[in-house]
């Protein structure tokens, strides 16, 4: 069975009430949903709650999922709506202590690895300092690998605005990284 076929089968079984199939879907998408929620909310605990709420809503609404969009896009839309609702309940976005992500590896030289880790840490702090629309566009495009079209579909924002958020967000992010690193502009 193909990768897409296996997922379709999981979605079908989950919509028929199989919690085992749904657990597989949660396992597969929890990081994506959590990162989307985190990008909107900027707070790890609230992102946790929003992710949990997203999957509960998805479970309840799975019978309604017709497969017109990809399952991931459908799930992201729920996650985005849930996160926005949580964000409007609490306007003061805080940058709390975010743990460093799993090491992506690849550096053989420990010194270089340490330097790259420091760069990434700076990048992450700057990213969390962005305003939510810019941060969401950047997280969805660069960290989650979605296209302009997919982001527009998930957020309900026109594609031109997605592009603007992404480009402006990058400009601000690059300036912030340079400021935090205290170095010369790259």
């Amino acid at each position: 069975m193909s990768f897409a076929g296996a997922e379709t089968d999981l979605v079908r079984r989950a919509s028929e009430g199989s919690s085992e199939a749904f657990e597989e879907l949660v396992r597969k998408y929890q990081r994506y949903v959590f990162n989307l929620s985190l990008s909107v909310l900027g707070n790890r605990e609230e992102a946790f709650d929003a992710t949990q709420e997203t999957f509960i809503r998805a479970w309840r609404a799975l019978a309604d999922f017709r497969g017109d969009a990809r399952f991931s896009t459908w799930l992201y839309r729920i996650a985005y709506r849930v996160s926005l609702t949580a964000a409007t309940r609490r306007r003061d976005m805080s940058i709390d202590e975010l743990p460093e992500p799993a090491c992506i590896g690849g550096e053989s030289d420990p010194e270089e690895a340490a330097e790259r880790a420091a760069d990434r840490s700076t990048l992450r702090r700057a990213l969390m300092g962005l305003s939510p629309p810019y941060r969401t566009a950047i997280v969805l495009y660069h960290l989650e690998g979605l296209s302009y079209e997919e982001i527009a579909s998930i957020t309900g924002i026109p594609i031109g605005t997605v592009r603007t958020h992404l480009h402006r967000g990058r400009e601000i992010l690059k300036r912030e990284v340079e400021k935090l690193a205290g170095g010369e502009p790259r």
Partner: protein
Amino acid sequence: MNCSDARQLTHSWLDHTLDDADSVAFQAHLSRCPDCEALVDGWTVFLHDLNATSQWEEPERLLPAVMAALPTQDDGVDEDSWLEPSALFGLFFLCVVGLLRASGRVIGGLSGQIHRAYSPIWVTVSWVVVGLVFASTVVYMLLRKRVHAKFL
């Protein structure tokens, strides 16, 4: 293309969303403008770092928490409940009997006397009301599963 034009197109070029004509003009400008070329090089390195930034890890307790919080059939509306259809048909039956009695078509009580009709307009109105209640209840029950899935 001048430097100002090139800088406006930089992000689209980096995202490979420029059309062919703009892309050729952009590259031609870079080949003769070291400042813009350096700027684009800087952006390329920056975006490479950004793309290499991995996602944040979700807490380990997330998956168990989600699975523990999933509603079971007992938690919400029981789609296969026998209670609602039974109540619906009970109500309908009572309405029909009441109307038939009111319209004098059935024998009332133990006396064996036939109740005579009330005013026909009231009988008609009563039938219309019962019909509307019945129809709206049936429609509600048919749509309930969809409404429930959509809003919850």
